[in-house]
């Protein structure tokens, strides 16, 4: 009687109803004695510092862009994957060309390093030498030389 989408619809209704009933019942039952501390934004017991709106790394955006392209690719592959066996080698080649073209893009991005996460550069700790050495060291850096003079 129910179609497959009908089952999904019943599922959606049940999920929505579950949330609504749980929230309404909880608001009826629970005691309500708010204090200033209780109403604070919960941040693992710490005092919340700064705005929660932080700028995201641009890398997330690049990954999301690439994801969408492959999302559309997968969507187009679904109908092809259902029928390609009926067409034998021809059907396979059609899909293979499609995949090959997109693989070129993948290879390009891999080579160009767009899939790499931008890591912070690891720098060895530098010592900020303030004192004047008794014996002038070898003049390795120009800064040291000028300081000595």
């Amino acid at each position, binding site marked *: 009687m129910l179609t497959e989408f009908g089952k999904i619809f019943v599922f959606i209704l049940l999920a929505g109803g579950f949330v609504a009933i749980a929230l309404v019942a909880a608001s009826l039952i629970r005691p309500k004695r708010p204090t200033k501390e209780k109403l604070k934004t919960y941040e693992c017991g710490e005092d919340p510092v700064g705005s929660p*709106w932080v700028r995201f790394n641009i890398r997330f955006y690049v990954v999301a862009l690439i994801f969408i392209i492959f999302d559309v690719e997968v969507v187009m592959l679904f109908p092809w994957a259902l029928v390609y066996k009926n067409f034998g080698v021809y059907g396979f080649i059609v899909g293979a060309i499609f995949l090959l*073209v*997109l693989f070129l893009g993948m290879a390009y991005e891999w080579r160009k390093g767009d899939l790499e996460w931008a890591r912070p550069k690891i720098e060895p700790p530098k010592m900020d030498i303030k004192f004047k050495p008794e014996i002038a060291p070898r003049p390795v850096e120009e800064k040291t030389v000028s300081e000595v003079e």
Partner: protein
Amino acid sequence: MNLYDIIFYLFAAITIVSAFIVVNAKNIVYAAFSLLFTFFGVSGLYVLLGADFIAIVQVMVYIGGILVLLLFGVMLTHKITSVDIKAGSVQTIPAVIIIGIFAALLIGLMYSTHWAVNPAEIPVTTTKSLGKTLVTEYVLIFELLGILLLVAMIGAATIARRDGDK
């Protein structure tokens, strides 16, 4: 009014109400999240029309992809809280005239079209027949789509690449 109609009006209401919030929200993040429900309602309408493949694509690409991209775009902006988005009404009278003309056109079209409705029919899955046309009749379009996606991919990577990268 049968069950089908009730479900249709439910999804239509979700779509319209959330679309209204998208237009009127003062906070851009709320507008983006409200767009989620608009896409969801539209995908429900697709299901009711028997377009199961389009409905799944709507969920996968629009809700799963484009909305995420949109939210990232919002969150990447420098100062979200101080962004002054325009949600007021300007030029009401011309808008009313144009919308009136458009609505009259649509309603006229709605009544003059002969709708081939067959509500008792159990919808068949369209994905297989779609695949058949993709491999035979529209095979060139299928391959061109691959090239289009390639262009989009390289273009997106080039634009989004940070300055100073290789």
